[in-house]
């Protein structure tokens, strides 16, 4: 997900006698200090008293060892950020890059040579600019350093060798820039300046969104984004000098979130999927509210969005709604009908009662394994109480498997890895079955029986979400299904979960 700035620069090559202060990355020194911290001595590391002594002197001079040869506070900081200050005096050839763009007007030095140019150009006196601190630069052909300062000594004169115009590409997501074939770090200060510049520029260039500090794009208006970007949750926007490539989208307002929910459902429905209104609300809770495109502050809001035809009409553009209207009325008319009211399962108030009711339907003594075939077993929502359901069911059915019905080509949800681990730690095996959801819309409890047969209960929602949030009321139900019914295009669910 690169954020790139391509900026014009005016390159000025200056030659002068100067003192150059910079920092050099010394991971070898950091490694040595780490070894000393682990109890090694300089003598044991170098096996030579003169070498150990010389190194000791150098480290003490740099403040990395105290007088007694122990590590200092500075040495700890150095291990974390192993930059060693370097001072050099001499004749240098500096390449200053000036950023003339509005609001910037500053210079950085990407390249220093420790010798004068052989160019026979006419020289003129010049006052060197101030180079931004912390920017990595190249020294001669192979070395690199982080700029601290350049001081033109005493009454020395700096000469301008030549000027030229160039373009430099800054990768703000990586904090690097490219100069003469080298990839160099921008340093925090320069990065901050350029990132703020990019944000400001983006406001002008892409007025329908906001580039945030954590490098997301906040969506202000859905219509300005193509559907594919919105569904994938990433976008690419480009207008000189800013390029935002595969940047995560973020929705931070309730109005946009509402529109996004119904656009997302529209896309799913137009692809030939059918859901009851209740199931659409379940999708909203499990797939949209948990999606990274929805800002964390809006998750509760999105989870409570009610799905009905009027809400579609309010939130979708009219031309989209008119395409969907007939489908919606079909789903409204034919799906989600409460045909199995008031069963022994729907009357349960908690998972203990539910597990007991299930055990009453399918005798635990006859069962060798229970497979929970679910679509959102590990979804990261507060409503997901799969652990409670597993605890209750394990009292009756010790051998259990969670079968996760995964889409073939997209994630179902934001998965909570902790939840997956915790389920696993309860001795429940987990099977991810890609493509199962393509054929089987519903959720099932499949029981392996001692006699080699199987018994199937259909669950109208996730077992971990069968009770309404903060309530002892069931929102879903269970009922037995004939084994011959759980077959799609000649493929049996029972066979598929055992593959």
């Amino acid at each position, binding site marked *: 997900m690169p954020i790139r700035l391509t900026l014009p620069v005016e390159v000025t090559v200056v030659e002068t006698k100067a003192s150059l202060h910079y920092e050099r990355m010394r991971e070898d020194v950091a490694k040595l200090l780490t070894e000393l911290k682990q109890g090694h001595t300089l003598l044991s590391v170098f096996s030579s008293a003169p070498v150990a002594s010389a190194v000791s002197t150098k480290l003490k001079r740099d403040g990395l060892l105290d007088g007694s040869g122990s590590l200092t506070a500075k040495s700890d900081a150095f291990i974390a950020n192993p930059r060693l200050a370097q001072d050099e005096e001499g004749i240098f050839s500096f390449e200053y890059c000036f950023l003339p763009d509005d609001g910037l007007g500053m210079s950085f030095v990407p390249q220093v040579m420790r010798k004068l140019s052989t160019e026979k150009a006419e020289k003129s006196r010049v006052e060197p600019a101030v180079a931004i601190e912390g920017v990595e630069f190249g020294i001669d052909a192979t070395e690199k350093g982080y700029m601290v300062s350049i001081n033109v000594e005493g009454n020395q004169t700096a000469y301008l060798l030549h000027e030229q115009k160039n373009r430099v590409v800054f990768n703000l997501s990586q904090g690097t820039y490219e100069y003469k074939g080298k990839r160099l770090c921008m340093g925090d200060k320069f990065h901050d300046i350029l990132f703020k510049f990019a944000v400001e520029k983006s406001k002008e260039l892409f007025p329908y969104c906001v580039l945030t500090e954590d490098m997301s794009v906040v969506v202000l208006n859905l219509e300005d984004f193509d559907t594919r970007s919105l569904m994938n949750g990433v976008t690419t926007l480009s207008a000189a000098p800013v390029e935002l490539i595969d940047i995560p989208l973020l929705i931070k307002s309730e109005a946009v979130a509402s529109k996004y929910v119904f656009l997302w459902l529209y896309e799913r429905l137009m692809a030939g*999927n059918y859901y009851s209104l209740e199931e659409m609300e379940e999708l909203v809770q499990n797939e949209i509210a948990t999606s990274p495109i929805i800002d964390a502050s809006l998750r509760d809001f999105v989870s409570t969005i009610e799905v009905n035809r009027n809400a579609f009409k309010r939130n979708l553009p009219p031309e989209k709604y008119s395409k969907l209207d*007939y489908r919606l009325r079909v789903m409204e008319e*034919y799906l989600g009908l409460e045909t199995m009211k008031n069963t022994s399962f729907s009357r349960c108030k908690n998972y203990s009662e539910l597990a007991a009711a299930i055990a009453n339907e399918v005798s635990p003594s006859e069962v060798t394994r229970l497979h929970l075939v679910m679509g959102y077993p590990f979804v990261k929502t507060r409503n997901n109480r799969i652990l409670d359901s597993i605890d209750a069911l394990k009292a009756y059915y010790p051998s259990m498997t969670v079968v996760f019905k995964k889409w073939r080509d997209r994630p179902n949800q934001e998965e909570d890895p902790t939840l997956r681990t915790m389920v696993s730690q309860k001795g429940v095996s987990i099977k991810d079955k890609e493509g199962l959801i*393509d054929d*089987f*819309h*519903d959720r099932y409890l499949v029981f392996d029986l001692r006699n080699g047969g199987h018994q199937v209960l259909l669950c109208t929602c996730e077992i971990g979400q069968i009770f309404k949030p903060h309530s002892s009321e069931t929102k879903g139900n269970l009922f037995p*299904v004939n084994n011959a*019914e759980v077959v799609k295009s000649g493929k049996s669910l029972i066979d598929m979960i055992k593959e």
Partner: protein
Amino acid sequence: MRKTRTYQNDSPLGYGFILKDQNTTSPSVCEVCSKAETSVTIVDTGDYILGSFLNECAGILNDKKVVVAGLVSKKTLAGLKGRGVNTGFFRATNETVGLGLIIIDKKEAWACFGKGRINKIAAGSDEIFQFANHLLWTKTDNEYSFGESREVQQTMLSVVMPVPSVGAKAGSTQHDFATVGIPSNKGIIVSELGNYEQTAIAMPLDCRAYVDQRRLFVEIIPDAFYEIENGWDLQYANSFDPEHASPKDLVWKNIFYKGKNLQVLDVETINETVYVPVGEVDGYEPDFDSIYAKRNQISVRTEINVDVLPMVRDGSYQLSPNYKIRKQIAEQIQSGLEKLEKLDLDDKGVAKRIKTVQSEPVFEEKVRLYNELVSGLDYGVDALKNKKNSFPTINQSKESFVVPHELLGTLLVKGKANYLALADEGKLKEGKAWLKESGLEATLILDSKQ
């Protein structure tokens, strides 16, 4: 000669039906569907409804307020686009429902039978809708919906099969007995429960059904039977009493009996003509029983008249090959005799014998004399040199060239059999004698010149 026999049929006919004029007050598909305010659900795996619906109810299909969901056969689904359908929610199933169903607004169910009959289902529309809806979401592979074709992606078993409570569920054996298949274009026979023989009626149904106190119940959900309003009117035939009803009880009635539609007559006359060989007319006794058994009619009294006539020559007979052979033999003899006269023969009496042969009037005798002549010849030297073998004898049997005198009749063949067409009936005796004398067997018929 006319021969006559009369049969009287007073026996019970056994199993059969009296056909009725059909009540034609059934509403049309469009009349039923136009009541819808929210939805029309159609189950039509047997093509009872959809043709009429598409022809007559385009307005309902295109009404933005009413959704139309149809469960049809794969063949019907494939043809929807070609019929210009570009809306509605149609899915195809391999399941077979033996009647058509129209459910209006999920609450009023209509049953559609053969011959365009549509009757309201008295009760249980809720569970019938659930049944249709269950099939729609769980037993379908392809859809043509909102003008697009695609495979059905997911089975949605949460749309459950209802547990029938309104639909009466009597013992299946009893229902099997009550519903008996008869030829498909006649629908099925339905009877009062447990009273099959006496109360059977025929209805244009393709599903299991029974009647109870003149109320019709048809199977819609497997093993669940629902009452059809005015279902009794569907009957197009009811059985007559198989043990007692005789033709006398059914005179002038249209009946369905032994696979045929018939009208029972009081008196039926059957006239037939039989041709027999000349001479057998008087003694010929027609097989009246066989004629009676083959008749296509049921009647109280059946009079069978058989005109027995002699067989007469027609174009189907050919002249006997004897005539041709006879002619060839005659030519051979004539030519042989003429050659003999010119030969130098040792026996000088031959000339006299040639004359004898030539003058013999009886053909068979002429042949015999000729054979005798040529086989006993003594040839002179010159004749022996060149001509000895020029006079073969005639070896054909007599039966192959005998023919009757033209005043007696003509010898004919048809197939491999011989017929002697007599010049008139008076030649009967003579003809028989000639056949005996000639050693031939032939059926005697009359020449068409008579």
